[in-house]
Each structure stands twice: as structure tokens, then as C-alpha cells.
């Protein structure tokens, strides 16, 4: 019988929600939580020998150590396949699943599989290097997820040839694989057109490469008279991170008043970003949000003025959809406030 090791987070292990996300990794014998559904799908073919439970915050904030510990745990069981999640739309869980699955694959050479919703930031990060099954966006989709993940997991464990993404249920990963559909191409085309004409959902068989081009605005006419605003995805926030902007997969942005602030210091500001070494940004947050330089320019007449508010979020594993939504919202405020140009800093 094939051996499976399953990885889940604190929520699916019934330990608790966000408030328990700090629990470190632990291993339990046999099945925990959603593992039961997998076990039922595996039948006699495979057995979940162990389940590793780890808090999402613990994983994301102690990534190297967490990876090391968990790899050791997995090694002990020597499984035929390692399954993480499914994470649905939980961003940090998705990133954790992808990260740990990748680590197990790279370091232990064991086949791995995970599952999550297409918009989960973990999907974009890992779909080209791991098989990620596309799931619904909430735990209500568990049955559907297991139905797709279990057979694919067995195939991977047995080393069988994996077919196209459409046949096997994983997210298209940039490798085109041929397969035979039930109907001929022209029929598929006519059906697709009928759906498109009725504004119904359809799935293209070949997604065009992602362009996402934004046409640049014309240059600012006179920058010495312009009101410039600072916006950053580098995570600079007032010391203490009063609005609790997450260190990754940020679900919010902050708007802060720097009226009268000429310089950001270690005592007054910090970074909340979990994706880069924070030491230098914490020592002098101007390095990421150059308030000091712009105040100088203001004094010297090189710019008209520095806008009193800056907008910030953490651009670490942030879902594109969220980033777009934030910007759409505060862009309106910037325009209403008469801002002429924005300096956007990242990391």
C-alpha cells in the first residue's frame, strides 16, 4: 500500500482560527481532519501514515526553520507522495502549501501535490513548478477538491504518465500536453461561441500570454509645481503596525498622515513586509519610503509639494485582484486631493 504524508494548517486541524496561526509544526500519526476524505478516496491503494499540522503564521514567519523541521518529519515516514492542503482561497495557507511541497519535492525527491483556488497567491507562485489542483474558493469545495486530487495523487505516487491539465485537473503550468477531446474542434468552437454570445462562462483552450500593459500617462508638465504623493508596496507603516497589515498576502492597505513629518525614523516607523530582510528598512524607513528626500526637494522648490498622506501595503504574495482593488479605491482619493503624480516604491 502506498504511503501518504498530509500537511494541513491549524484551522483544518481544528486547533483554531487566525488566533492560533502561530502554532509550530507538529506531526501526528494517521489522519487528521480532511485527511479522512482523502483516505476514503484512496481506498485500499494508499494510506495516510502521518499528518503534519502547522500554523500559517508560524510557517510564513519562520520559513527556513519550518521547512527544515517539516522535511525531517516527512523524511522519517518516507512516503510515496506528499499532499499539502487543499488551501482554497486562504492566501498564507496556499503559500505555505506551495512552499513546503516544493521543498519536499526538491530536497527529498518525493512526488508532491497540492490544491488551491486559482486566485490564491500561492497558485501564481508555484503552478509552473508543482502540480496544483484547481479547487473552489472555500472549504465548501472540499469534496470536489478531493475528487480531483486523490486520483492525481495516486498517479504521481505510482510514477504514471500525467496527462494534460484539462484531463487531470491541475492548473495549466505552461507545458502544453496533447490529448483527445470527446468532440471535434469545430463543434467545441461553435459551443464556445454560443456561450460567448450569451455572455455565459466559457474556458479558452489556449490562454493568451499575460500582457497586462498599462499605457503610461503623458509626462508631468512642470514637476516644480506638482503635488507628489508617495505610495509603496514595501510595507512601511507607523511603528507598531496599528492596522495590522499582514506580512504576506495582505488583505488591506493603510493611509497615513505625514503632515509635519520631515523624516521617517526607527522610533516612529517600521516595515511590516515579510518578504525581505527588514533590518535596513527598520533602521531607516526612508530607504523604502523616501519622505526625507522629498521634503528636501519641497524646500528647494524642486517639487511643488509632498502630499500629506501616503498609502502603503505589503506586496508579498498579494493577490493581484486585491492589489488592483486597493489601487482603484485610493487612486480616486489621490485624484480628489489634487495629486499630480505618484512615486511608487516597491522592494
Amino acid at each position, binding site marked *: 500500500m502506498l504511503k501518504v504524508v498530509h500537511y494541513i494548517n491549524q484551522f483544518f486541524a481544528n486547533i483554531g482560527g487566525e488566533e492560533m496561526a502561530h502554532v509550530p509544526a507538529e506531526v501526528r500519526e494517521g489522519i487528521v481532519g480532511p485527511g479522512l476524505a482523502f483516505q476514503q478516496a484512496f481506498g485500499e491503494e494508499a494510506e495516510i501514515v502521518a499528518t503534519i499540522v502547522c500554523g500559517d503564521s508560524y510557517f510564513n514567519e519562520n520559513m527556513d526553520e519550518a521547512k527544515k523541521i517539516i522535511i525531517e518529519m516527512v523524511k522519517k515516514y518516507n512516503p510515496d507522495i506528499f499532499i499539502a492542503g487543499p488551501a482554497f482561497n486562504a492566501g498564507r495557507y496556499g503559500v505555505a502549501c506551495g512552499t513546503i511541497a516544493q521543498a519536499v519535492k526538491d530536497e527529498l525527491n518525493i512526488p508532491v501535490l497540492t490544491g488551491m483556488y486559482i486566485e490564491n497567491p500561492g497558485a501564481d507562485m508555484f503552478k509552473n513548478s508543482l502540480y496544483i489542483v484547481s479547487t473552489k474558493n472555500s472549504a465548501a469545495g472540499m469534496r470536489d477538491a478531493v475528487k480531483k486530487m486523490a486520483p492525481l495523487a495516486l498517479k504521481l505516487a505510482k510514477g504514471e504518465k500525467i496527462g494534460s491539465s484539462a484531463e487531470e485537473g491541475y492548473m495549466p503550468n505552461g507545458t502544453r500536453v496533447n490529448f483527445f477531446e470527446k468532440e*471535434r474542434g469545430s463543434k467545441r*468552437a461553435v459551443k464556445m*461561441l454560443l456561450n460567448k454570445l450569451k455572455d455565459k462562462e466559457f474556458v479558452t483552450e489556449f490562454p493568451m500570454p499575460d500582457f497586462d500593459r498599462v499605457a503610461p500617462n503623458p509626462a508631468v508638465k512642470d514637476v516644480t509645481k506638482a503635488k507628489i504623493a508617495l505610495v509603496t508596496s514595501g510595507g512601511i507603516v507607523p511603528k507598531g503596525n496599528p492596522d495590522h497589515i499582514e506580512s504576506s498576502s495582505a488583505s488591506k492597505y493603510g493611509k497615513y498622515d505625514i503632515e509635519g513629518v520631515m523624516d521617517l525614523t526607527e522610533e516612529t516607523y517600521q516595515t511590516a513586509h515579510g518578504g525581505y530582510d527588514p533590518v535596513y528598512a527598520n533602521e531607516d524607513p526612508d530607504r523604502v519610503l523616501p519622505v526625507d528626500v522629498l521634503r528636501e526637494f519641497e524646500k528647494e522648490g524642486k517639487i511643488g509639494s509632498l502630499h500629506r498622506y501616503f498609502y502603503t501595503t505589503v506586496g508579498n504574495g498579494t493577490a493581484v485582484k486585491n492589489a488592483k482593488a486597493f489601487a482603484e479605491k485610493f487612486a480616486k482619493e489621490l485624484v480628489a486631493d489634487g495629486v499630480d503624480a505618484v512615486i511608487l516604491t516597491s522592494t
Partner: protein
Amino acid sequence: MKLELGYVFIKDIQFAEVSKVENGTLYVNRDEVKALILEDQNFKSADVELARPGESIRIMPVKDVIEPRVKVEGPGGIFPGTINKVETVGSGKTNVLKGAAVVTTGKIVGFQEGIIDMTGPGAEYTPFSKLNNLVLVCEPVDGLKQHEHEKALRFAGYKVAVYLGELARALTPDEVHTYETPTLVEGIKLYPELPRVAYVCMLQSQGLMHDTYVYGVDAKQIVPTLIYPTEVMDGAIASGNCVSACDKNTTYHHLNNPVIYDLFDEHGKTLNFVGVIITNENVYLADKERSSNWSSKLAEYLGVDGVVVSEEGFGNPDTDLIMNCKKIEAKGIKTVLITDEYAGRDGTSQSLADADVKADAVVTGGNANMVIDLPAMDKVIGYPEVADIIAGGFDGSLHADGSITAELQVITGATNEMGFNKLSAR
């Protein structure tokens, strides 16, 4: 325009004293066919072979595949402007020898394209492995120029197909399918509530071995225009295109254009199949601009709500495809495109030579770079030694035991961009 297509089902093909169709078997007088081919003095010799489904036979290099049809009633004859006079076709009654085909082979130029395996893994990828084929192997006279050779071979195929089609003239078809396209005005009255759909059919038009003919006119010379779907069923569009094997439209594909048949299936029910816009794929960029401007203008003029666009060929036609898509979408008309892919042997390269965000509804005929192993066949009709130099073949493609390792590209019709096959990719 209304056409009754009568299918006479052919289940077997045999050589015989007298050419005829009896009990589903197509009997062919070999000498008559040879004589027909040799009427063209550009050929010094000709041979005729049979290849049936399931037989261990490989045909290569394939140039064209043609289905035998005959005009039983109504104006004109099959292949107007080429074999028959230019009279407008597409109405009345036409009989078809369904299950039979004429296959032409020949080394016109150095690289050799087109393999049809009648059995084995290769047979899965070509629709022609399921047909009873009459294969023409014709030797040109020495020193014959390539374009004359190409023309001679092309006409030999049409002539033999027409000769066989004649055999069905007096027969009662096993099945009759009626196809009718109302005029624009009639159509609006009949189906006021249904979405109006047109089919934009792109034709390869770039030079020797890359041409298509419409009522005998070289498609390079046309500006996009309208044609009734049933005209195509009578051979109004004929292929002179030999490259590349996997995504060229053989004359058989034109006669059996699957987009036309599948749109007819929905006509009057879920959509109003208004008609067909044909356009070309010239190399000159200004021609591409002109043609795509024109086809989008025609789509708008016809007042359609959506179009299906099919492509032919590799590389620069992707640019035509995207131009057609963008310009038609810009008119507020929805598009679905059918294409194939060259995503590299590992499937990770960029599939098309051009792209646009507006092309959001695409059907694919598969990745033509996929490598396939074709086992040796007992018999090879044609010129087997050319396996190494066929498209998708490479040094060492042809193994000593007669098996071939090559890309899917080499198989005739494998990734057809009219959506003829079930092959796809994700």
C-alpha cells in the same frame, strides 16, 4: 441556396475490370485511372494503389486528399473553375462516395511532407486512416519544373476524384442531408430572434505549394468576399497547399469543412448561420492589413453577432488570425478562433507567433511539435527514404527497421485548424 448532399457509404475498395459502386464497395479499373493520369504528358508513368483502414500501410509523401463527389442535379459541376466550368455551384443535389478518398503523392520539392499510416499510433492522428484510399503515385517527366509538376499532380487528383464521383451519379444515396442558407433578407425574417453568426475561413495563399483556389482563382489575388456554405461542399475551394502536413487543409477538408457542418447543425435552432467570409493569408503585410480590414468590414456589413475564425498554416498566418480577431472584436462582434500550436517538443515554448488579449476564446488542434514514434509498416506507398527530410523529421528520423520518430507535424491533417479532429491541448 439549397443543396441535398447524398452519401453513398463506401466500406471497401477493390481493383476490378469495371469501375463501379456495388454494395458499398468501390470497384476501380486500375488501367483506366492510369490512362486518365497519363493524359497529362507531364507524367512519364503513373501507378495506382489501394490503402484500406487497418492495413499495415504507410503513404508518404502525401500531397492532397480529395473526396469523390458528383453534381447530380443543379447548375455547375464539382471543382468549378478547375475541372468543371465556372458556373455557380452549391444548389441542387450532389452525391458523395463517403468513406473513400483519392490520395496524391509525389516528391515535388526536396522536403517531403505528409504521412498517412493506415494502422498503429499514427492512424489515431489522421482522419484519412479511416478511409478507403486510392493512392496515385505519379512520376513526372525528367526536368519538369516544380510548379508545373505541382499543377499536374493537383489536377490529376481532382480528375481522378471526379472520375470516381461519376460512379455515384445514378445511385440512390444511403443518407441525404439537406443544407439551406437563406438570403440575408429571408434569414432575418425567418430567424429574427437568433444570434447571427458567420464563418471566417482563412485560406493559405503564399506561393508555390502554398496556394488555394476559389473557382479556379488564386486566393492570393482575391479580396475577402462572401460565399455560400454549400458552394464549398461542391468544391468551390480547392487546395494547392502542401505545407505543412499537419495544418494544411486538403481538398477533402474543404469539401467537409467541419465548421460549416457544425454551424449548420445549430442553424435555425440556436443561431442563424448567415454565411461564409473567405479571406487569404498573403505575405505582404499591407495585404494582411487590407484583408483583415475587409473581413471585419464584411462581418459588420452582414450584421453578425459572432464569428468563428479558422486558420491555415504556420507562422505568419498567426498574424492574420490576430488581426482578424482584433478588428472584428473592435466592431463589437464576438470571435472564437481555431488554431494549432508549435509549443516545442517539451510543450513549453510560446505556441503562436502572435497574440492579443482580445483572443480570449480559442480552440486548439494540438501541439504539432509533439514527438511521436511510428512503427514500421509492412508496405510503404510512395517514397519511404524521405523520412529524414520531412518536416518534423530530423537526422535519424528514419530507423533501419523502417520505423519513424518525428514530430506530429508530419502526419497529414493531424492538427487541422478547421477543428476537424478531436485532438486538443492544455
